[in-house]
């Protein structure tokens, strides 16, 4: 059953003020288009969870969408600080909750599994455990050392960008797959954005590649170039210049507001964003093909 819809409808239908959102993608396939649509629709009091908030959450916090951020690495990857979130935290203007990457992804894995919690081995340091009461320790019932546990994280909505999906929401993704699967299975609702909508037969030609199945997907949106300034493996490159530029923009509230006006509020959708980027940028981010070798499933 087709779930194809516009991104704007998907966001307005499935997200509510106050929701816990997990926009997935570890450094790759970051759903910037959906983040911008959330800003454009003026959502408030969201709890934004991501291993690495990256620029997208910095922008959403700047726009006033969030009351809290949950992270395991709050930086501008390869550049430095996320100035907006960092500033809000230092001023006491934003709640936060913090894990190591492993703790964060373990919370999602527990959520995806339908388990109340999952264990991790001890790491020596206890400082994070002491400032985050959700991190606990329990005995090993088999007589070993105590283990550390974290509770399941079950976001209200996961937003996952993929390279190709059919209109029902069966999705192929590749390259860095990060926590895409875990976030999708953990969430109560899943909004999928995709570089390409393909026929179901493309998905069925390689079922081992299907990481997200239609049965957990609520909306499918065709949004090419949705990840800029992050990237989609095989489709376009990371726009490192933008990551450097944001470091400058985010140093001034006025510059941030001007940026949001120009790149989010004054435009209607992602295709307008892409047009505004211009051909020079788009060409700079293009990538030459490098194809995988095929495999034989056999016609049984």
């Amino acid at each position, binding site marked *: 059953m087709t779930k194809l819809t516009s991104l704007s409808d998907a966001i307005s239908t499935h997200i509510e003020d106050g929701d816990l959102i997990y926009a997935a993608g570890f450094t790759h396939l970051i759903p910037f288009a959906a983040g911008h649509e959330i800003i454009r629709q003026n959502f408030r009091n969201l709890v934004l969870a991501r291993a690495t908030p990256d620029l997208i959450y910095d922008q959403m916090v700047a726009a006033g969408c969030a009351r809290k951020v949950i992270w395991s690495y709050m930086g501008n990857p390869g550049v430095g600080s996320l100035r907006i979130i960092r500033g809000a935290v230092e001023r006491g203007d934003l709640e936060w909750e913090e894990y190591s990457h492993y703790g964060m992804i373990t919370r999602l894995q527990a959520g995806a599994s339908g388990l109340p919690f999952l264990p991790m*081995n001890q790491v*020596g340091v206890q400082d994070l455990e002491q400032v985050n009461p959700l991190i606990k320790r329990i005995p090993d019932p088999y007589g070993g050392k105590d283990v550390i546990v974290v509770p399941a994280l079950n976001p209200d909505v996961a937003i996952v960008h993929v390279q190709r999906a059919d209109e029902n929401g069966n999705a192929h993704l590749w390259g860095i797959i990060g926590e895409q699967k875990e976030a999708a299975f953990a969430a109560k609702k899943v909004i999928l954005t995709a570089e390409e909508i393909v026929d179901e037969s493309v998905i069925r030609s390689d079922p081992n590649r299907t990481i997200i199945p239609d049965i957990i997907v609520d909306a499918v949106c065709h949004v090419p170039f949705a990840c800029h300034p992050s990237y989609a493996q095989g489709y376009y490159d990371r726009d490192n210049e933008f990551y450097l530029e944001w470091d400058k923009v985010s140093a001034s509230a006025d510059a941030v507001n001007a940026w949001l006006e120009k790149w989010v509020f004054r435009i209607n959708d992602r295709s307008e964003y892409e047009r505004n980027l211009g051909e020079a940028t788009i060409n700079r981010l293009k990538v030459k093909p490098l194809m995988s070798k095929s495999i034989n499933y056999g016609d049984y």
Partner: protein
Amino acid sequence: MKPLSELNYSPAELMIINASRLLRDGDVVFVGVGQPNLACNLAKRTHAPNLVMIYEAGVIGAEPGRLPLSIGDPTLVSGALSVVSMYDIFTNYLQRGNVDVGFMGGAQIDKYGNINATVIGDYAHPKVRLPGSGGSQEIAAWASRCYIMAPHQKRRFPQKVDFMTSAGFLNGRKERTDIEMRGEGILAVVTDIGILEPDKSGEMILTQLHPGKTYQDAKDNTGWKLKSSEKVSSTNQLTDKELDILRRELDPTGTYLN
């Protein structure tokens, strides 16, 4: 080979080359971007051709065709041996004991090699809020050997870190040993003055000096009363070959070398 005095090199180059020499052929290394990535790629092109590079984004056996600019750069993926989920990287690879070496970084490194990458000041009311653990809490615990690269500065090497993001030897080696973590801990801190290594108690002491540097230089730039080993050796001078690979092949634009 030219005498050292004729080689111009930056503090970053000095640290990267000395760190690369700590790697052994066949090591499985959990690599960060930036300087650790350069150290690993340099080792692979010199004495450790069978080095296996793992990135916390889930990439195993990367053969980057260009300098990766973030931990998730697509150049790490194309042509890699394997790509797996974050959960798999932290469980099946790191926690299971399949990683030999980890590289750590941080805003503060204390006398026992503990690292702070979380916060300067009080956690609840941060003076400077840093990025936080990322993968480092677990790398420091479970990689067999860990190394740090850091410029030698007093504020970076305090007696005690404001927040323990990752374990060195905690409050002394015994405390780490009692917890029976898999990894041996921080085995070397490579600075631009020399190399610190843990003594029997887990305290970081000066064991090597780069050519031209003195024990006094190190003491002046360390926040605790820095001890030294009985004999402080000199690190081998940088070679033309090492510098050449770094500058021409690995980071031709000098992004991480200055």
